[in-house]
């Protein structure tokens, strides 16, 4: 597939003069709900294998931005380019097939299915999903892939428990495993540590760091400690526009960012 090809070349080795093509880029992304401009002319780009944090006060447009990227909302104007291809206005399933996965701010799983089934159905979305006459357990490759995804987040011991019976923190982690099972190139995490205990937050940070070795991560987060420790770069949203962008240290020093957060 076209999206796989550029991945093989590491971004650091790009030839001089060929600035590494960003994995994701938005140009003038704007979305209006009636009179309200939720996103205003957002130009944004993320390099391959970067961990980027998106922060901003409540209502700054972070979740709206995620919803645009993943096809839940259709932008009023502007373009979204992923791996060089225009994905503006594609439905969520096509965007998922292109390689963007997301986890949700509010836990969004199949509560009446087992942990394994939650992940297996995601893994199955890439192949065999139109098979009608074979038993789903006959596809060992899918099950092995799902078990690997569960193992990578530490949920394998709970594979056969109902997802509804997992703790809140485990359900949040399951969200990540479901996203991973779709083999994304870009993973969008919407407040992955929301409602977690300090210990669970630490575990999740380690988890994000370990999966970041293989893919690009976009993370919306309120916990500044998480942002500062995880992210290589930080983008600050305010009133639907990009207010500042830079390394965590730069953002901490930024005058306008401090104003926004002190006012909030």
């Amino acid at each position, binding site marked *: 597939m076209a999206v796989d090809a550029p991945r093989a070349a590491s971004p650091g080795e790009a030839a001089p003069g060929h600035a590494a093509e960003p994995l994701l880029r938005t140009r003038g992304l704007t979305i209006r709900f009636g009179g309200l401009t939720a996103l205003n002319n957002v130009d944004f780009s993320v390099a391959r294998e970067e961990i980027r944090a998106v922060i901003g006060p409540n209502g700054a447009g972070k979740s709206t931005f995620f919803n645009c990227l993943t096809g839940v909302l259709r932008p009023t104007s502007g373009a979204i380019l992923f791996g060089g291809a225009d994905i503006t206005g594609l439905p969520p399933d096509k965007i998922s097939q292109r390689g963007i996965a*997301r986890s949700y701010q509010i836990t*969004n799983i*199949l*509560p009446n*299915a087992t942990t394994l089934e939650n992940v297996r*159905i995601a893994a199955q979305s890439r192949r065999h999903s139109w098979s009608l*006459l074979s*038993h*789903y357990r006959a596809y060992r490759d899918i099950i092995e892939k799902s078990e690997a995804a569960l193992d990578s987040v530490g949920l394998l011991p709970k594979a056969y428990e109902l997802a509804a019976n997992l703790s809140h923190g485990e359900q949040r982690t399951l969200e990540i495993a479901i996203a991973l099972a779709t083999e994304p190139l870009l993973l969008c995490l919407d407040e992955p540590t929301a409602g977690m205990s300090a210990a669970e937050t630490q575990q999740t940070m380690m988890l994000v760091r370990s999966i970041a070795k293989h893919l690009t991560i976009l993370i919306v987060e309120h916990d500044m400690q998480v942002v500062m420790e995880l992210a290589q770069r930080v983008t600050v949203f305010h009133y639907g526009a990009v207010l500042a962008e830079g390394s965590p240290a730069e953002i901490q020093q930024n005058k306008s960012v401090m104003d926004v957060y002190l006012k909030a």
Partner: protein
Amino acid sequence: MSRRRFFVYWVGFAVIVALLAVAPLVLPEFWRRFLTEILIWGLLAMSSDILIGYTGMVSFGHSAFFGLGMYGAAAALLGSSPPNLWLALLYGLASAAAVAAFVAYFSTRLRDIYFAITTLIFSQIFYVVIFTSTAWTGGENGLNFSRPRFAIPYLFSLRFTPAVLHWFVLAIVALSYLLLRRITHSPFGMVLQSIRENEARTRAIGYAVERYKIVAVMLSGVFAGLAGVLYALQNQFAAPDFVFFVVSGEVVIYNVVGGIGTLVGPVVGAAFFLLLREAFSRFFTEFYLIPLGVIFIAIVIFMPRGLLGFARRWLNG
């Protein structure tokens, strides 16, 4: 499924099929006929369980698929001489599939109650079309035809005696059940259940939900059409009453009474409902709907998972 449960399941299945197969040899004609009809209504209810129980879409339009299967079979039986069984099956299934594709294309864009209403409206449109196209369908009077022979060229040719017809219906219903059961456990079936549990999430992990829903409606419609063909064979007529939405409503009731999402439940529901109606109409004459309604309400309140769900919980202690 554990080995023991696997064993119990297949023994149970074999025993039930064997009992149903022996039944026409011992039952008087009235009850033989009654049992055959329970199987046919059971198949119709089972087909709608694919939508109600597995995909979470309540169809109030199954009478259209059932009716088109019936009229398709009628067209084949009246149009061919001598009437041919396989042609009746082919015409019936093809008409039901065509109508299901049409209904599915439009109705799957909507969800929940809007889907239900759309299917109901479509089935009423087909009812009116059938009712008014007197030249083709016989209108209000319906169509009468004779039964074909049960024949495979050069192999055998049997007359459809009541017992042979019963076995034929039993074989088709049992095979349909096994096929539908396999489909509900297939990767495709798991996608349907994922849609039922969380449609937005299913879309977000990469499934084009609408396409799966369209196939689900068509699949369900084809099996409903199959039930329609069997009904036409059994009763030797096709009538517009069977396309009327009341039939769709009864199918939903069979599902709810028997237990949705189980395939067997709707068959149990159909048997229970039809037997009760038969018994009550003898004792209460024209007031039979009153006790029937009371029992239905009691089941919904006290057995929200239907008869089968209740029995399962009771058996498991």
